[in-house]
């Protein structure tokens, strides 16, 4: 079994992985970071979105070995350097706008939203809707998610 070394939320880890292990499985089962969720098997739902070298990817569509040497960001890392109880501005905006109900799609939504805003700080509503195409939410009807991303973007711009 080959070993891979990755930097996850700033910490370097080396683990052996099976050739058929998906990055999502690696993150959930081997790193025990269960905030990354798996909601489908066709890369449609986006619950498994993480960042890979600063780009969002659906971690169910990447083999773990493909991430060897990469920098990975998961939902657990977003507010880990903040004082306990504090949230990243995008997380806080989701809470403020009731942009989540069951919470299952939420980690993927938030990871997608943060990167979307990093890529385009002045993103408008159409851009947000377009940027969320790869993330499915079955609870909220999206309106509050879109409002949350707008507010989160504003807060991230500072």
């Amino acid at each position, binding site marked *: 079994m080959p070993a891979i070394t990755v930097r996850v939320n700033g910490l370097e880890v080396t683990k052996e992985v099976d050739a058929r292990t998906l990055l999502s499985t690696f993150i959930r089962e081997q790193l025990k970071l*269960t905030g990354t969720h798996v*909601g489908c098997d066709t890369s449609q739902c986006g619950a498994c979105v993480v960042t890979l070298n600063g780009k969002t990817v659906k971690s169910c569509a990447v083999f773990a070995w493909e991430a060897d040497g990469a920098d990975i960001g998961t939902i657990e890392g977003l507010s880990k350097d903040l004082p306990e109880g504090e949230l990243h501005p995008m997380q806080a905006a989701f809470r403020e706008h009731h942009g989540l109900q069951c919470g299952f799609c939420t980690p993927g939504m938030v990871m997608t939203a943060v990167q979307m805003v990093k890529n385009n700080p002045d993103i408008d509503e159409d851009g947000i809707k377009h940027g969320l195409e790869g993330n499915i939410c*079955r609870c909220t009807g999206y309106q509050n998610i879109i409002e949350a991303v707008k507010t989160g973007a504003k807060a991230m711009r500072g």
Partner: protein
Amino acid sequence: MATYVARNGIGERQRRMEDFRFLTGHGTYIDDVNLENQAYAMVLRSPEAHADITSIDASEALALDGVLLVVTGEDWKAAGYGTIPTKSGVRNFKNGSDMKEPPHHAIAIDRVRYVGQPVALVVAESLDICRDALELIEVDYASLPAVTHQSEAIKDGAPQIWDIAPNNICLDFELGDEEAQKKAFAAADHIITLELVNNRVTAAPIEPRGAVADYDAATGKYTLWNASQNIHANRDIIADNVLKIGKENLHHIAPDVGGGFGGKNGVYQEPILILHAAGQLKRPVKWINDRAESFLSDTHGRDQVSSVQLALDADGTFRGLRTETVGNLGAFCGTVGPFTPTGGSSRTQGGPFKFDAIYYTAIAPFTNTCPLDPYRGAGRPEGSYQMDRIIDFAAAKLGMDPIELRRKNLIPAADLPMKSPMGLDIDCGNFPAVFEQTMQLSDREGYAKRKEATEAKGLKRGFGVCMYLECTGGGPKEEAKVVFRDDGKVELSVGTASTGMGHETVFAQLLAGHLGLPMEDIEFHQSDTDATSMGGGHGGSRGLEVGGSAVTQTSRQIIEVGRKIAAHRFDVDAAKVDFEEGRFHVPGTNHTMTIRDAIDAQNDPDNLPDDLEPGCMNITSVFERGIISIPNGGHACEVEVDPDTGTVKVDGYWVVDDFGTIVNPMLADGQVMGGIAQGIGQALMENIVYDESGQLVTGSLMDYALPRADDMPKMVIGYYEDAPTEKNILGVKGAGEAGCVGAPPAVVNAVCDALKEYGVHHIDMPLTPERVWRAIQDAKAES
């Protein structure tokens, strides 16, 4: 019964308690539950819609290193397990004879009856080994003819799915006075008939179903962690009816559940299979469905084919309504499946409109498809679709204005309370006021301008409304238990089940609001049979109605005990003690005691009058709803249709709901918006399709379309709050399902309005670009 007056934060927008853990990736969903030494299970599912199993050979799978167990129908027979019963509230044919309930085992025995039915369970040391082992099980099937459409299933000569059910009919049903309906029809000037389909859909929560089972050989007890919305009732069925282990020996827990919408209400086969496996192997067993399996095996919803007839006078006055429906049940009776097309769709027939007579009749046949069970609304969306579509269709046929037709026929406020022709107890509300509020909210004055702008783009614009009336349902009883711990925390346990609705917040909000305690002190518990002695779980928009009422009732009882403690301390009569904003006070004195003081005092007998025992403020109470509530409201929708491509864009959405008292408007808005999204999904894109041989065509998220962010319009939500119900102590009417009750007819009405110049007056859902385009072409060819 006095209704609740909002105060102390109740009625305010309160941010959610559960959000922090969900937003930081620290929720505990079923796939996050892992036990020491657990084994993994996967299900071999039938690739055949209807076939005899002639042999199963699992020897190669069992020989694979790491495979622990293979379970088949033969094992099930040998174990003598019971069947999964249906709890349908309607159980008898019109003639009084018993419904046909076939044996529903957790695994196929001798014959399969739908694609996806469990044929074998494989348990192994890892999921990868399970996957390999599944491929090594050899099953021989002798195919039988299959039938998937309910209208075909009831014809003479159709493939017979169960010997006990001639023409595949499980049940038939009627409600209302047929003679009166016929009389009303005979006297009316017009009778308009519309055949329509309520398409088959699936709940599709983003978290797939899953479970972890454990068996403790020392105590003989089982524990089941299960992505379920209904742990008490399902425990009873699993433990008592199927495994026959006694319900006291099954501890049933639902962790955080990632959405349900009814799809996680019923009893499923897989959790039962892994309980069996855990008992056999004496170690924990985990099973998680993948999305492809979810499409095959999560119960489906809707799927009714109906004929609706509206009788009306020349001036537009409604006289009578007749609905005949055939509702697909799938291959077995779901946990409450047969109720949906019968009782479920019948009760709200006629909506908020005045009729002389209504008659409803249904046939519920079996087909070689996955069983159907409640999906958000469970019968009421079908009823509102039948009602609000026939109004627009009749208006189009008779050259009337559908808006005016509604305005003319709404039940006047002065007629309430009343019993509807379907026997529904409509106690309060003001449908004309809700209608006018909806019209006002939707900016009718600006419509002409918006239409002009749409047409300038070469598109068509349409406006549609739905005036829905629905009812709550689910278990009538709920328990709320409050325990004050000596570390200052307050445990609140309620037998309802939140799968995203926010009970953790709204119930804490109620308790904190009543008692005047900080919400942060409250620890919420749900969905654990050890934490709550009983519970009605989720379903029928009952959470706040029954669970919230239970919390309110328990809160009031706590205050009464606290009042006695305060009276004892101040040596006055309890009647002289007031309670306000967390303080007991004797007017005219400086005697004051906080609720926290009373809580701290409750464990010392010296602080208590003779009739109270230590711990007396730790109270559990059960609230029982006498009569179901009647949520109602108006939906208004504008669409843009591209006649060249058939593409529909929902371009505006307005809704006014009468949910009685609104406890947390932020959560109520969330329920409405999510429901509208599911309604728009059903109206425009969602469709479960089986081919004639019974293969599922829409087996992935690439074939079954769910609404995405850019499919949604801006939704504007208002409430009518002047009619709290007296049927429960909160005055609430239930908010969870209303969105998808009202949305499908509003959307379809709007599209038909946009296309009326072509002569298109009806298109069956989902209104995909192809269907819309074809409808336009067909209408053009006809004219």
